[in-house]
């Protein structure tokens, strides 16, 4: 982690802890979380359930305040959702406005900022990015899960964010859809130059997508170790997943998380 100078970091977390009060007393969700996200980087955070993954995303996104420690976006403390950061949630059915069409959902973040023509162009561009050109006037409930998740991604991209925070975005999708959305995400990174924090419980997904993979484990959750992936920018569902570097890292991560490969 020291390899990346914090000056170039988009996001930086320093010794972040998160505690929520419950009836039985304080419940510690996260403790001692440190990381820096470089510009244009995909940082994958992998961890089993119950280690505070969603809490971590909501802290980074400024949706909830950490109990202690620092969260910096471009060197400034985060207080509320920062401008230029978009979030893609796992539960697309709740995150999409079910009463708005696909185009209407994508318009949500831009309709008050851009004039009508610019807004329409942006919607069209984002629909094309996720391959939903023919579904602009459909309602979310008329689409499959994978397509709904694409709508959520397009809606986030419409903001032209510098950072995309993704909370298990592909977790509830079937393997085929998951693979194609993973490749789409890598392509979008190439096209937009955005940085990503990608949270998942899937070790292989973390390696396949990440430039670095951080392991979140324990209760309270803490970032145990970070690994450079070193697979290069071009990835392929078959070849990459069979590469020795991929398999090695997979084994190490399984060990780190405490699951045997």
């Amino acid at each position, binding site marked *: 982690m020291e390899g990346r100078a914090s000056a170039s970091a988009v996001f930086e977390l320093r010794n972040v802890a998160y505690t929520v009060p419950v009836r039985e007393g304080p419940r510690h969700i996260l403790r001692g979380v440190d990381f820096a996200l470089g510009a244009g980087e995909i940082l994958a955070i992998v961890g089993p359930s119950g280690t505070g993954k969603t809490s971590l995303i*909501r802290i980074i*996104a*400024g*949706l909830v305040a950490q109990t202690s420690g620092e969260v910096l976006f471009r060197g400034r403390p985060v207080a*509320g*959702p920062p*401008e230029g*950061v*978009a*979030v893609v*949630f796992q*539960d697309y059915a*709740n*995150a999409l*406005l*079910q*009463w*708005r*069409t696909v185009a209407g959902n994508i318009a*949500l*973040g831009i309709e*008050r900022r851009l004039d009508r023509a610019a807004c329409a162009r942006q919607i069209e561009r984002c629909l094309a990015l996720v391959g939903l050109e023919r579904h602009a006037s459909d*309602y979310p*409930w008329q689409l499959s899960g994978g397509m709904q998740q694409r709508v959520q991604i397009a809606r986030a991209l419409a*903001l032209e964010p510098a950072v995309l925070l993704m909370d298990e975005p592909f977790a509830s999708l079937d393997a085929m859809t998951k693979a194609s959305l993973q490749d789409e995400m890598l392509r979008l990174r190439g096209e937009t130059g955005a940085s990503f924090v990608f949270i998942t419980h899937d070790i292989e997904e973390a390696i396949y997508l990440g430039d670095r993979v951080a392991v979140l484990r324990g209760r309270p959750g803490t970032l145990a170790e970070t690994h450079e992936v070193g697979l290069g920018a071009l990835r392929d569902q078959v070849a990459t997943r069979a590469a020795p570097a991929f398999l090695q890292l997979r084994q190490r991560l399984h060990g780190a998380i405490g699951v045997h490969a």
Partner: protein
Amino acid sequence: MTGRQWASGIGGLLVCLALWQVLVGSGFVEYDLLPSPWTIAGGLATMVTEPAFAVEVGHTLAATLIGWLAAVLAGTGLGAVLGTSPLARRYCLASIEVLRPLPAVAFVPVALLLFGFSLQMELLVIVAPALWPALVNTMEGFAGVPQRLTDVAATFHLKRSTRLLRVYLPAAAPAVVVGMRLSLSLALVMAVVAEMVGNPEGLGYALVREQQALHPDLMFGYVLVIGLLGMLLNGLLVWGSRLALPGLFRRPVARWDSA
């Protein structure tokens, strides 16, 4: 309901009416003042041609709608505030829980004493009970907006008014509409009650008048008209809400009778 459900439902109704007709017409059941459906239909036919009939329907309809609108405006407004503000809920919920279970008809003597035999009395009797379904359902609709949607509204930097009108209100809309429907049927019931005992106008008064004049056919006719008015108002409201929120109410729901 599908066309087939309507057809079967109306078939069932016709069987009941035929049974009634046969039992009363044959003299098997004997009540002096229980007319047969056929007699009631005749009474209804003469009733609707009276010029007074339109005035009676108009009065009840106007009182119901005015009372309902007032109840819905106040109820959804207060409900939205209570639903979005936990602080407001904490201070108001106890009062609501005390006031809400008061039986609606208990307001009748109160309103009579306050306003005498008047339209104000009728409106108070309508608004006071019809407020609660609108308020409580709206409150629960707003309080139940998924955290994910509030997250989305926050990360998209929507203004407070935009959040409220474009995200939370549509998300709460199904519950709000349920509240509006419950309020509407209650408003009609209370209008009729108020007219029966307080304000001597409209369908409720006509019902009592025909009862006391020993015109059972006309009395049953008015009962029928009140029922049809309720159906019509509810149907219009459902139709209107589907029109206003196409994405919400066109969502296909798994039907228990789809087989």
